[in-house]
């Protein structure tokens, strides 16, 4: 093994050597610089692997004496890892900065080398004065690198940096001096043994040391200088500060944390959390890319600071948590800063430029998802473990603040991602990418992906995860250049094969929802054949969503469930944002999903208190806060079922999605929430707060959702929005049924889930086909299409009859069961609302079919063709199933009933053939079908006999006040179809909830805007902030 001291000798030596070379050859100098850093990195890496495989830590005594008489360096696991990261960042950053380093000459390279070297020493040294010296070297290095950029902003930033770190260094020095005075040594290990914290003066000395280190980490709110540096510096330098320098300082904090008592640690945690939340809050209002990255960096470092403070509570998982979050931050932030240098545009909206090179967009997405903590990135695991441990140790406030901070971070990061995917990019300059700038970014992305997978393999809890679906997704990325029909076939075959392999293991709810997810997925994919071209990037995302969905079905532990939930969210987000006008809708989908996911995470965390296993059935034996766990999880799942209050993301997201994506996200994706609720209710059973039954509240939420969704649907002009709101309403019925916790209630809910899947797929495909042909979604611009698209008409007709729940089709079964369930349960008022909603559904059903298909055909649609065959095919496949379920209702209801029987033995339906009997009434779907069919045929025959000679007339041949109308537009009654109804009841759907969320969002932005005013750019103010921060913390501690 090479001694760690050579990290220093190599880098320092090279720095001197290239100084000698002067301007002989800049290329050789640059190469030498990179080789030196690479060699240093190799030394770190070799130590890291050696220590991981059991080698002892290395200690270096510089002057030949033992401490406290010499400066000693330690190379342990942590040091090896952090120096490895620093040297890696140094190397990649060097490659990235190659051009500008060469432009600015040899001295910049020397500064760069010395900077990297000093960071290495900061990490390894065990001597606090030595630490101080190299911190100064690093500071000067950074300031030098920042100032060397020839812009006034950079100069200012460098100056502020010098002043601020100067103030901090002063404090640190005082602290070190007193520590030396009290402890008689500068060596950390010896100071620790000296236990100077037992008396006040000693602990003040340690306090001054620690607080300086914390200030170096740019804690909120004493961090204005740091933000300005991030904004002003070259992004390449920003990457170094954020990734390398911050990692080093964080390690110093970790190293020195052994010196302080537990009360200090609490303060460190509090500062970290405050920084995490405060910084992310201010990021929300930010529109400058580098400054935003600065906020995000400081936030992440704040989180890591808090983790250092929480070390005593995190136990054996501390390393995993800290390292996984650090590594995600490290790669993602470096990558993002580097990307920012490539884009060269500071306005976030200009990042739409990335679309010119799609692989840059992919990289950008990887970094954003890694930062937020989505699987399979390491921070996902880290956050999971962190939340579990915090819940275990009853740190509920910290848990809540961490989730809030993460959510705030999600707001601006996903908005930014949305800009880059969807923002108008017509007037942006072309993007040029140099090899030396892109390689580091690609390597960072690979690094964060690879480390995520590595962490997955070494962590016990993640060992059971199935990566086969993810491999399949990777395969689809590889064959992304092939035409649609190939990829579509591969996708369908893949899902089919997977369904075939897992089918024998599915039973009960898992079978039903597995079929909805997978068979439903295959069915909706069939429609994809109507697309031509390659449809780049579509199939991997679809499969990502389905992989998540199937993961929910297969999950045995809360961790697997959450993993799958996040995969599904990520996949569906990208599917939704593919729509033409989907930017804002995808963002609101993502934010609701994110908030929901965090609630679920918190719920799982609380459920895990006092449990040793992560199995899903721990929910059945929650030790403490059971009602709270239930509420958290239920609200989390209800963000997906779009229950009232949490529904505002849905209409836009579903309506703006592509033709065949709408059914996926509407008919299939929403069922994930239903499945979650079912799992939750099955395991946790009835829940009361005092004597109040939470399920009664759920029943009301379901009922109000149903009325609100259906009424909103009736007032829409956009056909797809109408269908989207109709989904909201229908999911309300399902929630209502589930809340009954009775056999019939669940029978209704589960069968309605199946039925909703069928008719919503049918309708979205049918309407999608129309929109595809007539190029508009506004219903009043259509009309009379029955003659042009008769097959589509039939499927819409069947679809709306099912929605309306009118006998004889299968929708009526659901209504009948609900009636019986209500009579059994007795919750009449919410029930009355549900039945009211059922009738309100007639309004939008009729509007949908009338304004689109009936009435007057528009002139511009006279040449419109029937919808493409591939869109019709799945519709008619579904129609056949609907007719089967309608004629033989027990083919659907009996198996579901049998499945429910062990759970709810009381109140099951009694079947005699097709006759269903409940405690209150009876219903024979088959006989009804025959009778209605019989009467219909007889009456029709009679009419036909009387009127067989009826003459078909042209469009305007109507009795119109003895006139012949000339324009379809003036004759087609379609716009604002239910105007009087709106006049009477429109107040019920005044957008209170949308307004609520709008003002919540505005409020957060306003707070963010106010808070960030403390950063006035004046360096004196910043220096004052630093001192005030010390004073305040001092007053809190002492």
């Amino acid at each position, binding site marked *: 093994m090479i001694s760690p001291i050579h990290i220093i000798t190599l880098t320092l030596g090279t720095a001197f050597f290239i100084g000698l070379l002067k301007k002989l050859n800049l290329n050789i100098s640059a190469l030498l610089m990179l080789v030196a850093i690479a060699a240093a990195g190799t030394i770190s890496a070799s130590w890291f692997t050696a220590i991981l495989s059991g080698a002892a830590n290395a200690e270096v005594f510089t002057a030949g004496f033992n401490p406290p008489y010499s400066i000693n360096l330690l190379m342990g696991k942590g040091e090896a890892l952090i120096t490895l990261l620093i040297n890696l960042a140094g190397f990649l950053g060097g490659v990235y900065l190659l051009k500008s380093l060469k432009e600015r000459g040899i001295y910049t390279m020397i500064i760069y080398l010395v900077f990297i070297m000093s960071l290495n020493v900061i990490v390894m040294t065990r001597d606090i004065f030595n630490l101080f010296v190299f911190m100064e070297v690093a500071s000067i290095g950074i300031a030098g690198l920042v100032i060397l950029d020839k812009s006034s902003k950079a100069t200012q930033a460098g100056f502020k940096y010098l002043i601020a770190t100067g103030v901090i260094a002063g404090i640190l020095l005082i602290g070190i001096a007193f520590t030396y005075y009290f402890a008689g040594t500068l060596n950390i290990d010896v100071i620790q043994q000296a236990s100077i914290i037992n008396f006040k003066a000693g602990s003040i000395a340690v306090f001054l040391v620690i607080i300086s280190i914390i200030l170096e980490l740019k804690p909120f709110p004493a961090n204005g200088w740091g933000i300005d540096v991030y904004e002003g510096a070259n992004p390449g330098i920003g990457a170094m500060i954020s990734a390398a320098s911050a990692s080093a300082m964080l390690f110093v904090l970790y190293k020195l944390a052994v010196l302080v008592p537990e009360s200090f640690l609490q303060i460190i945690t509090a500062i970290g959390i405050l920084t995490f939340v405060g910084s992310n809050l201010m990021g929300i209002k930010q529109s400058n890319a580098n400054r935003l990255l600065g906020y995000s960096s400081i936030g992440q470092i704040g989180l890591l600071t808090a983790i250092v403070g929480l070390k005593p509570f995190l136990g054996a998982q501390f390393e995993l948590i800290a390292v996984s979050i650090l590594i995600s931050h490290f790669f993602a932030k470096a990558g993002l800063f580097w990307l920012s240098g490539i884009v060269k545009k500071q306005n976030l909206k200009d990042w739409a430029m990335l679309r010119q090179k799609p692989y840059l967009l992919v990289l950008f997405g990887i970094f954003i998802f890694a930062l937020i903590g989505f699987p399979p990135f390491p921070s996902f695991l880290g956050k999971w473990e962190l939340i579990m441990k915090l819940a275990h140790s009853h740190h509920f406030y910290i848990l809540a603040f961490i989730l809030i901070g993460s959510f705030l971070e999600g707001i601006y990061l996903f908005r930014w991602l949305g800009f880059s995917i969807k923002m108008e990019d017509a007037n942006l300059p072309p993007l040029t990418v140099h090899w030396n700038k892109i390689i580091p970014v690609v390597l960072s992305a690979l690094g964060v992906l690879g480390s995520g997978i590595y962490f997955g393999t070494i962590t016990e809890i993640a060992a059971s995860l199935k990566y086969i679906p993810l491999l399949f997704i990777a395969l689809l990325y590889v064959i992304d250049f092939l035409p649609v029909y190939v990829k579509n076939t591969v996708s369908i075959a893949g899902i089919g094969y997977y369904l075939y392999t897992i089918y024998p293991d599915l039973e009960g709810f898992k079978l039903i929802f597995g079929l909805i997810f997978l068979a439903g997925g295959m069915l909706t994919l069939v429609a994809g054949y109507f697309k031509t071209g390659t449809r780049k990037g579509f199939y991997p995302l679809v499969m990502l969503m389905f992989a998540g969905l199937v993961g929910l079905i297969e999950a045995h532990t809360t961790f697997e469930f959450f993993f799958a939930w996040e995969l599904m969210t990520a996949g569906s987000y990208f599917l939704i944002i593919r729509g033409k006008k989907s930017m804002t809708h995808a963002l609101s989908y993502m934010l609701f999903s994110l908030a929901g996911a965090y609630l679920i995470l918190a719920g799982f965390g609380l459920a895990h208190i006092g449990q040793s296993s992560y199995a899903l059935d721990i929910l059945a034996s929650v030790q403490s806060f059971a009602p709270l766990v239930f509420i958290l999880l239920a609200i989390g799942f209800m963000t997906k079922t779009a229950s009232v209050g949490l529904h505002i993301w849905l209409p836009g997201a579903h309506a703006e999605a592509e033709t065949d994506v709408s059914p996926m996200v509407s008919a299939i994706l929403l069922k994930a929430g239903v499945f979650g609720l079912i799992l939750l209710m099955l395991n946790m059973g009835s829940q009361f707060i005092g004597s109040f039954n939470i399920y009664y509240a759920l029943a009301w939420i379901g009922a109000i959702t149903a009325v609100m969704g259906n009424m909103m649907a009736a007032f829409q002009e956009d056909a797809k929005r109408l269908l989207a709101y109709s989904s909201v309403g229908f999911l309300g019925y399902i929630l209502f049924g589930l809340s009954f916790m009775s056999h019939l209630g669940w029978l209704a809910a589960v069968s309605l889930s199946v039925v909703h899947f069928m008719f919503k797929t049918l309708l979205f495909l049918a309407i999608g086909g129309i929109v595809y042909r007539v190029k508009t979604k506004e219903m009043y611009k259509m009309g009379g299409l029955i003659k042009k698209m008769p097959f589509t008409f039939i499927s819409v007709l069947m679809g709306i009859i099912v929605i309306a729940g009118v006998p004889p089709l299968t929708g009526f079964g659901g209504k009948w069961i609900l009636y019986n369930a209500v*009579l059994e349960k007795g919750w009449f008022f919410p029930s009355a609302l549900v039945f009211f909603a059922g009738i309100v559904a007639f309004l939008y059903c009729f509007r949908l*079919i009338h304004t689109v298909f009936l009435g007057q055909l528009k002139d511009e649609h006279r040449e419109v063709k029937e919808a493409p065959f591939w869109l019709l095919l799945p519709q008619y496949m579904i129609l056949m199933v609907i007719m089967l379920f309608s004629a033989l209702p027990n083919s659907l209801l009996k198996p579901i009933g049998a499945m429910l029987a062990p759970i709810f033995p009381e109140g099951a339906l009694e079947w005699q053939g097709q006759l269903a009997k409940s405690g209150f009434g009876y219903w024979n779907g088959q006989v009804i079908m025959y009778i209605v069919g019989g009467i219909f045929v007889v009456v029709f025959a009679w009419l036909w006999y009387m009127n067989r000679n009826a003459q078909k007339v042209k469009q305007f041949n109507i009795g119109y006040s003895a006139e012949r109308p000339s324009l379809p537009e003036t004759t087609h009654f379609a716009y604002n179809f239910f105007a009087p109804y709106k006049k009477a009841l429109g107040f019920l759907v005044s957008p209170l909830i949308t307004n609520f969320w709008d003002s919540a969002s505005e409020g957060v932005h306003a707070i963010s805007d106010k808070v960030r005013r403390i950063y006035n750019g004046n360096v004196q103010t910043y220096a004052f902030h630093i001192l005030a921060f010390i004073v305040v913390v001092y007053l809190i501690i002492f």
Partner: protein
Amino acid sequence: MDFGFKHILYALLTVFIVLNYGLILQGIVRKIGARVGRRYGIRWYQPYIDIIKNYAKRSTITHGVMFYIAPVFRLTGGIGLLLFMPVIFGSEIFSNFSFAGDLVLVLYFQFFGVLGMALGAAEGGHPYSAIGVSRGLSQVTAFELPLTLGVLAIAMQYQTLNITEIVAAQQGGFLSWTLFTNPFATIAIMFSFLGAMGRSPFDVVLAPQEIPIGPPTEFHSGLLGVLQLNRAIFPAAKLILFMNLLFGGATSWPELVVKTFLIYMWSVFVGTVFPRFRVDQSVRWFLVVPLTIAIIAIILIRF
């Protein structure tokens, strides 16, 4: 229940009787309305003449398939509604197809014809038809809410959704009718009944003055004839439903005639006295007065 050929014959008999009763009732009511308005009015058998005249028309036009089968939907809805109910209590012959489903079926089957008709009317392309449908559906949603609550109250009271059992529970003197055992539910339902009958003040759907006869605007000759048949059967079927639910049902045809005639007269009386509501007015009215009463009915049943 085994289903035999005789059931079809029984059904035909029921339809025949009710059809004639409905036509005569229609004629008589129109006559009464005219007399109240100091006019002489039509002959009581005028509805028969109208039907014959319509079928005899030689020119028939159609606007398309849906337009053509709309009256079929409508009449199927009317006949079906009638046949899914026990018409005469205790009579196997006139219980028809009530074994197929209970009260919920009947409540929802009402809409089968309404919606089918709405579709066909809309295909006619006449704006008046669509306006009529818009108004009609709006009004339906409003009066369904008190009706639903009332029906739930009744079903709770008798612990069944089986219409035959509901009627059976009301036997033994008029004091055991729902009218007296559950007056609030009865009032709520009878208010909803006004909406369901579509007479003034809730006749804005057909509105002969501004949107001449609403949805059926474009229908004529045989198509209108089928609708007219339904106009006889459908109200009669609804009358029988409300009679079964609230007024003890009927054990014989004369009893049925008397009871349904009186129930019908309730809507005729209100219609002759009160002028027409606008849609928004009627929607609000249903969701205030009858709904409040229905809520009281539920509270009384529950507590």
